[in-house]
Structures are given as C-alpha cells and as structure tokens.
C-alpha cells in the first residue's frame, strides 16, 4: 500500500506545481505528469483497462494542449489584487473539505466496498455475455446504452470543434459567403 500513498502525494505535488508555475509550458507538462502518475495508480489498484485508456487519452490531451500554447507563452500579468478572491476560494474549499471529511466517515471502510450489484456481474458476467474481460462486458453489454451516450459525446465534441474553428460564422446581410465545409 505504501507505493500507493507515495504516488498520491506525488500527484498532489504535481498538481500544485502545475497550478503555481508561471510558465505555461511547464504547467502543461506537469499536468501531463499528474496524468501519467494517475495511470500508474490505476495499474496498482487493479484497473488495467483504465490504465491503458488513461495513458493514451493523456497523451492526446497533452499534444492538443501543447498545440494550443506553443509559441504563446506570454508573460503573465501579475496583478496581485486577487487576494480577496483567493481568500474566498480558500474559505469555500475549507468548508467543502469539512463536509467531505464528515461524509467520508459514513462511507464503507477503505478496501471493503459493499458490492451489491457488482457481485452479480462477477458471478454471472461470463456466463451471460461470454466476454472474459468483465469491464468490457459491462460497458458494451450490460451498460451499452451508456456507451452509446459516451460515443455520442465524442461525436458531439468533434462536430463542436469543427463548428468552432469555422472561419466565418455569421453571414453579413444579403451577402453570399462561400461555405467552407470540409
């Protein structure tokens, strides 16, 4: 278990570094580091599917973010008048943590989940779907409808990105603009 804790601390450190760094490039890179650590954590806590997905998604995010900031690492405007804002945020977070800690006590103990429904999956999954990867059998059979939604979200995002990068959005009145459909 000790390695899990080390990795978690690493993640938190990475996140703080990512937030506090002034340079955008370094910030993006340390976010990438957090993502990679996350995928290792997934591996340790026995979720190989997630580890694979996380690592590739992380790479893609990383590349896209790099694209966005490349050659744009302008100096920040260092206005320090955000002190008030910081206090409000810190207060909010403290409150949130307080409630969360109270709520954690009611959760089942770490490492011993209830697993009511999950046991059904574990017992009958193979017999009913024939897939030995239970995660696959859940996302594509028991809960395939969710996956349809998930695929649709990606589809929506693709169309959305294509929509946003259009050159000319609005036609001027009585003017024929050539449509730039790709």
């Amino acid at each position: 278990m000790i390695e899990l804790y080390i990795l978690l601390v690493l993640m938190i450190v990475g996140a703080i570094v990512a937030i506090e760094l002034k340079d955008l490039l370094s910030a993006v890179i340390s976010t990438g580091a957090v993502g990679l650590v996350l995928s290792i954590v997934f591996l340790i806590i026995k979720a190989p599917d997630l580890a694979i997905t996380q690592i590739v998604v992380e790479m893609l995010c990383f590349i896209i973010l790099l694209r966005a900031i490349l050659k744009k690492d302008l100096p920040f405007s260092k206005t320090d008048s955000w002190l008030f804002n910081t206090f409000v945020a810190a207060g909010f977070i403290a409150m949130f943590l307080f409630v969360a800690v109270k709520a954690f006590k009611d959760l089942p103990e770490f490492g011993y989940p209830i697993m009511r429904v999950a046991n059904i999956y574990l017992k009958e999954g193979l017999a009913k779907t024939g897939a030995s990867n239970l995660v696959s059998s859940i996302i594509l059979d028991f809960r395939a409808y969710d996956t349809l939604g998930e695929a649709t979200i990606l589809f929506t995002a693709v169309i959305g990105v294509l929509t946003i990068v259009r050159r000319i959005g609005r036609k001027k009145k009585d003017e024929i603009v050539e449509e730039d459909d790709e």
Partner: protein
Amino acid sequence: MLFCCGLYCILVKRNIIKIILGITIAEYAVNLFFILVAYRMEGRAPILSSEVEIVNMVDPLPQALVLTSIVIGLATTTMLVAIAMRIYEKYGTFDITKIKELKG
C-alpha cells in the same frame, strides 16, 4: 485533496489555459476517487482467465463508469481548447482580465 487543488485553480487563476488545467486536474481527482472507493483489499483485476479461478476481484462497475467519464473529460477538454484558441486568435491574450466585453 486533488479535487480541491483543481477547484482552487479554477477559482483563483485568471489565465484561460490555467483554468483548463484546473478542470482537467479536478476530473482526474474525481476519477481517482471513484476507483479508490471501489478498491478491495488484496483484490485482483476483473479479468477472468481460463486456467485458474480468481476470487476476490475488484468491483468492475466503477471502472466501466470511469472509462466513460475519462472520455467525457477528453471531450470537454478539447472543446475548451478549441474555444480558447479562437479566443486567443481574436483577443491576442489568454489573460481573462483583459477579455471583458460582456458585463455581469
């Protein structure tokens, strides 16, 4: 904890890219939390094998859900990056204090 870091970042920072990073980190945090609550001591990965029967597998359901939520996060991030890049194109800055055409 990580979630709070992300939240802090969103609330405090005034740079668009930083906000995006904050959202990403907060997403990681929620995903991680979901998997952690489903972890079982001495658990095994939920993949059956033909030779040995494995007992004490971890809960596969949250893993499936987190898979979905990772993809949702990816979709949101790409949308945000696309909007951010267009904003940069129009305004020439990522600093949100300088982007203020709309009030309230």
